[in-house]
């Protein structure tokens, strides 16, 4: 399996994702520079955390226009897997691959902590190895992780089971406690918490590892079906 980690000039969790795939999962992974035009041969694209282009105006606002995002859209349109973590989630909403938007945390502070999440659905390629309703601990580190969407969008997401993770103790004011969602096609995931920071016991937590293993499972399954 081959993963690609997009590198915007202000990405800073790119190496964390890279090592989670390479060292923990033992799979192939490559950095993809933000002005790359074509994405060939990647099974799963990761948009990592960070501050894509400084994010001074709004998180993800400038990244939306980077050359690689057109290619990411094509990749997603082909039904292949995309995951946006933290800043990556913000970019995915800006570019329209996921609904809603992320605004300043309700307490106006950056929050770095490990928080409990509830797995709301396990019928996605990203969550299949979790139990539905399971509580997992995953780190968060963001200043703008407060998810907002209009009521209709929220309703539709609920009906479709697009909400994959919710916060047990909502830290940032997100509507419906949303921590992570997928698109209708269920091949694009966006989440504020950082599963790549929770893949090794030495870091005190490996609850995030199953998310990556779920992806591997899904990829292996789809290979068999081909």
């Amino acid at each position, binding site marked *: 399996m081959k993963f690609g980690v997009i590198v915007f000039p202000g990405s800073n969790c790119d190496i964390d994702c890279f090592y989670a795939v390479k060292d923990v999962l033992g799979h192939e992974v490559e950095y993809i520079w933000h002005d790359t035009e074509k994405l060939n041969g990647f099974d799963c694209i990761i948009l990592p955390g960070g501050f894509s282009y400084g994010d001074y*105006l*709004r998180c993800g*606002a*400038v990244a*939306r*226009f980077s050359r690689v995002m057109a290619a990411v859209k094509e990749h997603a349109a082909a039904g292949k897997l995309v995951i946006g973590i933290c800043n990556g989630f913000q970019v995915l*909403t*800006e570019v329209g691959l996921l609904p*809603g*938007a992320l*605004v*300043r*945390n*309700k*307490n*106006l502070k950056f929050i770095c902590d490990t928080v409990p999440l509830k797995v709301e659905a396990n019928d996605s390629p990203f969550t299949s190895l979790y139990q539905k309703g399971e509580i997992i601990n995953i780190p968060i580190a963001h200043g703008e992780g407060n998810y*907002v*969407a*209009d009521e209709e969008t929220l309703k539709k997401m609920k009906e479709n089971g697009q909400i994959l993770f919710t916060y047990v103790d909502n830290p940032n*004011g997100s509507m419906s406690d949303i921590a992570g969602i997928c698109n209708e096609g269920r091949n694009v995931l966006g989440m504020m918490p950082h599963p790549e920071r929770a893949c090794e016991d030495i870091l005190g937590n490996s609850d995030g590892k199953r998310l990556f293993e779920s992806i591997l499972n899904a990829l292996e399954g789809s290979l068999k079906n081909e």
Partner: protein
Amino acid sequence: MKAKVYVTLKKSIADPQGTAIQNALGKLGYSNVEEVRIGKLIELDLGDVSEGEAEAQLVKMCEGLLANTVIEEYKYEII
């Protein structure tokens, strides 16, 4: 041609920053303050373009980059 763009949160979106400032003002004794909302002011020097062109550019800039219309609205002013 110079322009000012004002980007504000839609009324339906909560503005915790505004609320925080309202509270702070309350503590300083300005208990009359009923609402505070915070927006962005973006001042641009568009260089040597016609007014018509400036206007066309501004709309595109706002829709595409300066505001996220899912949560924000914008106004601009050419000066």
